């Protein structure tokens, strides 16, 4: 597996922060968001194991810095997100209430999708979050269409298309990026390269090791970004969005990160990757990088961080409990929301 990309060496948080300073309040907020996303998944996986959540569960753990940069930097009064199935973190960052997300995961009638969608299929038009999607690459044309609609409606937002490294192998990626340039849509294609498409490493599913290299054929700007470092993702996101807003042209960005859990909750063996590799990535855990910087810079100390975590957990536990006791959908709802 010599062709397997290693975590991108990037400057230490201190250097990154010097290059792109973020104020203490912002960092505190980011830290809280990362903790929230991480703990959300921990509780979700626990509830899955307890039998309350069924079907699929794709954890976002490890990838949080990507969302911190790329979702926070959007202006969700005018911008839109079209996501894939690994969507819990992005929903939280979009401002959706964790209780409604848990309720959906529990199949409750007050869930985001009235209990009909499940983990991969939540849509919150109020939050400009236009879905997860269970089909790899299936959301890429949809996001392109959202961009085209914004253009036709002469609105000044952009659309963010989120997908994994595996989606680069689907025809829709290729077709959509070609059309995005032809039609000049204001869409950012965000590839979250977490090194694996289910159990298949990048080297085994991609003809080229760098995904930016695979995105050269579409006449649009491209770049590769360190996805573990909130300064790097925030800087890239702000700069890229400003450019797309101004030029009204699409852009492709590959963000390098790692998922800590298996592909989904059923994927436990992880026989396709090594402990060394996992350890190397955990060294650059986004939560660790951020919190150690904050401790060093004396923005927060270890105890405060732990207190923050406990506060977040308490908040989430309350949401879990509240969602649990919500009612399931009424039987009559089976045949609603579809023309018969």
């Amino acid at each position, binding site marked *: 597996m010599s062709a397997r990309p290693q975590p991108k060496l990037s400057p230490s948080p201190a250097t990154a922060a010097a290059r792109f300073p973020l104020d203490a309040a912002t960092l505190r907020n980011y830290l809280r968001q990362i903790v929230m996303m991480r703990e959300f998944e921990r509780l979700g996986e626990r509830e899955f194991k307890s039998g309350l959540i069924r079907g699929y569960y794709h954890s976002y753990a490890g990838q949080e810095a990507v969302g911190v940069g790329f979702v926070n930097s959007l202006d969700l009064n005018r911008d839109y997100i079209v996501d894939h199935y690994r969507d819990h973190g992005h929903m939280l960052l979009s401002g959706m209430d964790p209780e409604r997300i848990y309720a959906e995961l529990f199949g409750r009638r007050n869930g985001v999708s009235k209990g009909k969608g499940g983990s991969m299929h939540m849509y919150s*038009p109020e939050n400009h979050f236009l879905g997860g999607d269970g089909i790899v690459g299936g959301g890429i044309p949809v996001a392109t269409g959202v961009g085209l*609609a914004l253009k036709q409606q002469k609105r000044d937002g952009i659309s963010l298309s989120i997908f994994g490294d595996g989606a680069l192998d689907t025809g829709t990626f290729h077709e959509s990026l070609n059309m995005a340039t032809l039609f000049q849509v204001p869409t950012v294609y965000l590839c979250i390269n977490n090194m694996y498409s289910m159990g298949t490493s990048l080297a085994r599913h991609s003809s080229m090791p760098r995904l930016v290299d695979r995105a050269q054929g579409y006449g649009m700007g491209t770049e590769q970004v360190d996805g573990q470092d909130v300064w790097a993702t925030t800087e890239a996101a702000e700069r890229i969005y400003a450019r797309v807003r101004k030029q009204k042209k699409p852009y492709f960005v590959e963000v390098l990160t790692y998922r800590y859990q298996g592909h989904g909750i059923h994927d436990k063996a992880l026989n396709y990757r090594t402990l060394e590799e996992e350890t190397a990535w955990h060294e650059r855990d986004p939560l660790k990088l951020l919190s150690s910087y904050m401790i060093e810079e004396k923005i927060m100390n270890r105890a405060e961080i732990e207190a923050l975590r406990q506060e977040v957990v308490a908040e989430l536990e309350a949401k879990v409990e509240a969602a649990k006791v919500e009612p399931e959908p009424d039987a009559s709802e089976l045949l609603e929301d579809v023309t018969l």
Partner: protein
Amino acid sequence: MIVKKSTHEALNMALREEMTRDERVVILGEEVGQYNGVHYVTRGLYAEFGKDRVMDTPISEESFVGIGVGMAIMGQRPVVEMMRMDFALRAMDQVYNHMAKIRYMSGGRLAVPMVLRGPEGPGPNPGLTAQHGQQLTAVFAHCPGLRVVSPSNQYDAKGMLKAAIRSDDPVVFLEPGPLNNKQGEVDDGEYLVPLDQADTKREGSDITLIGYGASVALCLQAAHELERDGVSAEVVDMRCLRPLDMAPALASVHKTNHAVVVDYAWQSYGPGAEIVARLMAEGFWDLEKPVTRVAGKETPLPYAANLEELSKPSVEEIVAEAKRSLGN
């Protein structure tokens, strides 16, 4: 005012009227713009409405159907053309998993008001061969979340396409290829034809001939021939395949006690099967004889002129089947 128009002209009127009425209506597809549409349906619209409302796409069916979905959930009213409906096989994931399902999967929070349209079946011209002349009606009609319609004449073509564009549901609008260049009466004024009502196209008392799309013309011809032999055939145009309106067919069978279902699609697992199954469930006690089917032969569409003819349902087969049912 009633005017004589070809089907593609009728469809073109519908598009022009709706685009004029509602600026959210936009057209996407291959050669729909500058080329004016391979089957003429979009003729003149590029010149009239410009390239932002009539968009030529590359050969990327899956993705431009998906683009339509994205536009629709944002409140546009995209009308996406498949140059031939056969090419929708490329887009089936977007049709089944996105266009049809997003409303339900979102618990009704999003609607997908888009139209997917294009010609299907063996026509307008002969010799389309296996990959270009299929009639995939049943593939679409099986999918919950879609409305699936197919007009049998020019008047319905216009009124149904207008209704489809105004529908908040995703609509698959199947244009019978053999009808594309045929002429008939159209009202050049404003009217809509509902998307959930079958229609009796000819009254009769002895037997019911049931078709949709291009097979209605075969039924009408067969009815004409049967009349010469003293058989009075009623012709019911199913017109709306999903949801399927059985009322006129059931009422007719109640009267005639005999029926033949006629279909250009391959017989097995074709739309005709569903119609027969509903007649079984809801019309059984009215039937004196089993309902049978006359349909496309179960082969890819062959090229040779004689084989192609043989592969299609024919008026003679319908007449023979009707007579067999009536026992004469």
